[in-house]
């Protein structure tokens, strides 16, 4: 009956996945870029509300994930992007059993809405529309071991990209509508008792600012991003976390994309983020490496062009 003190956090994976829907690049028509990434993130401190603490009953909570992703140029100015991660969560101390499984499939339509070339400057505006849905019946109500929050989402993102010579700045804002979820309990306490197996999931606004160098397929970028839950409640002292907590975070990180052959078809990506401020989330340090390959679906083969 009694519980404990295991607290935690989160399916960061929604943020970690598919960097490509939030960056300032597009695949040309009929080019298909596919990738495989491996991510690892872990934390041993977390915020209960605004109270920062550690917890010897979970030690370090780590999340490993492997994701397949792809981006296809439907048109030069319209890409479709998808990703699907497999996730495993483990705690280094305590008794809680790890959890793993295929998490949420996400798909985005990315549209280059505005482009202005004023050499040496370029102005680009993208609109991204997408959504995600869980692909397996994983358990969201066992944080921090749960692999995700199991909420289906609709996303609307606007990206502005400005480039001068090879230097660029990218800013984006993303509104995420989150559908309510169902859990296996028929009653739960938030700030009040609720007798339902349905959980109200507050929506989210996330934003990102990137600054860097871009040449061909080479990208070196410094990033600050944030995730703000528009509602939700704080984890009380020594309480368990819950999917509808007010999970907020600000992260700083770097993102690299390096072409490994002359045709620019094969490239390696790597990124790393550190949570500098949070609320009801773990203070995670994460790293991702991935390999991307560009296939050309055009009949007349030519060197792939990446519109920037």
């Amino acid at each position, binding site marked *: *009956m*009694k*519980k*404990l*003190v*295991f607290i935690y956090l989160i399916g960061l994976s929604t943020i970690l996945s598919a960097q490509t829907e939030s960056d300032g690049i597009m695949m040309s028509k009929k080019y298909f870029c596919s990738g495989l990434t491996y991510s690892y993130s872990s934390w041993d401190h977390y915020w209960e509300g605004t109270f920062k*603490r550690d917890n*010897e*009953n979970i030690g370090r909570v780590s999340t490993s994930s492997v994701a397949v992703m792809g981006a296809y140029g439907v*048109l030069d*100015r*319209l890409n479709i992007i998808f990703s699907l991660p497999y996730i495993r969560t483990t705690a280094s*101390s*305590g*008794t*809680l*059993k*790890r959890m793993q499984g295929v998490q949420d499939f996400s798909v985005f*339509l990315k*549209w280059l*809405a505005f482009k202005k070339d004023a050499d040496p400057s370029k102005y680009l505006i993208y*609109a991204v*529309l997408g959504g995600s849905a869980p692909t397996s*019946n994983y*358990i969201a*109500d*066992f944080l921090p071991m749960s692999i995700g929050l199991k909420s289906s989402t*609709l996303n*609307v993102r606007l990206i502005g990209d400005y480039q001068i010579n090879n230097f660029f700045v990218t800013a984006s804002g993303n*509104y995420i*509508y989150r*559908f*309510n979820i169902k*859990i*296996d*309990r*028929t*009653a*739960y*306490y938030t700030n*009040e*008792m*609720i*007798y*339902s197996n*349905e*959980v*109200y*999931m507050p*929506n989210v606004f996330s934003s990102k600012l990137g600054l860097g160098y871009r040449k061909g397929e080479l990208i070196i970028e410094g990033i600050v991003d944030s995730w703000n839950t528009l509602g939700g409640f704080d984890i*009380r*002292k*020594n*309480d*368990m976390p819950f999917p509808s907590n007010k999970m907020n975070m600000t992260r700083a990180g770097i993102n690299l994309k390096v072409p490994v052959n002359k045709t620019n078809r094969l490239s390696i990506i790597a990124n790393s983020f550190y949570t500098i401020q949070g609320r009801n989330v773990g203070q995670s340090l994460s790293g991702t490496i991935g390999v991307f390959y560009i296939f050309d679906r055009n009949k007349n083969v030519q060197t792939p062009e990446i519109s920037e």
Partner: protein
Amino acid sequence: MISMAPIIKITTMKKATLIIVLSISTTLYFSCSKEIISVPDKYEALDPSQPDITAKNWKPVLLSTPNEFSISAPGPVNSSDYLAEINEIIGWQDNLTNDQKESIDYWKAGGVLRWNEILRELVARHNLPPYQNSDGTYPAPNSANPFSYPEFPFSNPPYAARAYAYVSAAQYDALIAASFYKDLFKRNSPDKVNTEIQLMVPPSQVEEYAYPSGEAAIAGVTVEILKLLFPTEIAYIQQKAYEHNLSRIIAGASTRSDIEAGEKLGKLVASKFIARAKNDRAGQAGGNAAFWSSLEQQCVAKGEIPWISQESPLRPPMLPRFGLVKGFLVDSISVINGRPQAPPSTNSEEFKKDVEEVLWYSEHPTKERYKLVDFWADGAGTYTPPGHWNAIACEAFVNQKYSEVRWARNLALLNMAMMDAAICCWDAKYVYFNPRPCQVNPKIKTLTGLPNFPSYTSGHSTFSGAAATILSHIVPSMAASFNKYADEASLSRLYGAIHYKRDCEVGLVMGKAIGEKAVSRAMTDGAE
């Protein structure tokens, strides 16, 4: 082809714009429909099929007689004082606000039900284990200084079981006393005295006489007991009681003097329960460091592996002397006589097999088992397993058209059984001090939080055995579903890899025996 390109682009842009507009409007639409409907919001007005006017003859829990506490006779309905009270009701009804209407609708589902829900909420709010001190010790909640961290109480399962029992039993006694005086004074409800008054609750709720108000007796008795059990919530509780009482006046079901008399009677009845609560040994249930280590030493002296907290820093065991608390249905001698036989020695082959079985469940979870583990977790921040059974009981009772006094009697039987289940289970836990499966085999990982007290017997199983047995007696048509719930609650602790199967099976049997004591009481309390 070339000339087509711009057209395609424009079309694409239009489509994309359309998609964005559509998605935003879709989002807005769904935003408005994300509201969660909580089950109790849907409960309809209490509409008892029989008023149970003979409840004054039912057997109270603590009162020696229904008129052990006396209240003064009401003034006549043709007095100017009474006329003033009638005018107050007409005044409220002439200027009815939406908030007042909502309040009437909320409370007309029944005071016993609503206060049970409020109590469940208080339990969940306070069911948080204290956070450690910087030196690795744990602070204990202190009722003399309830607001300082950790707030008093930590309403863990035994504490909660006791709280549910006191509130339910006291409400029951208060309603028996109210029943006695209603029949003695025979004052009609205001809607029957004055036709200008509109009755805003079902007429079946005022079929009994009106003085003293039963609803106010419920509010009065509950407030006093909750003051003791949840002292940081007094302001919140008083506000609820104020709303409850006022809703009855505005609804035309009671006059102010009916309410005041009921409230006064409730408080008098509460005094008897409070005196008992202060001397039922729950205050000493936490023990002290010397006692905690003596439990361990006694176990080692017997050659057994003692229970050790698996929390870090090591947390003192939960309420090790709760087995000594004075029960309502089971006395101290019966606790000892009914104690289950010892679990197999931690050195035995039998024990090893029990551990292996838990390991198997830990390593082979299924979706179905996870579901049960989660459904019955009832851990930190919840209303606890006794709260879960109160929720199950109330959902069953709302369809039964009980009178308020029968509601109170049924919940009192349920909650006295569960409090005594906690006493008997905690007695066994600390007499045997049996280690948890994952203590003896660290390969066992748990699918839910590991409770911080010994393994044998399972609290969930004992609570559930007791609850299902008395509920099956009260609502026989639902016996199959209550027993299924009890079996699932019990097994969920094995599936979660925090209990041996034996803990669950023995706990269930023990719980059923306690439930039978409640059944015996039910068959002789005059209500059947």
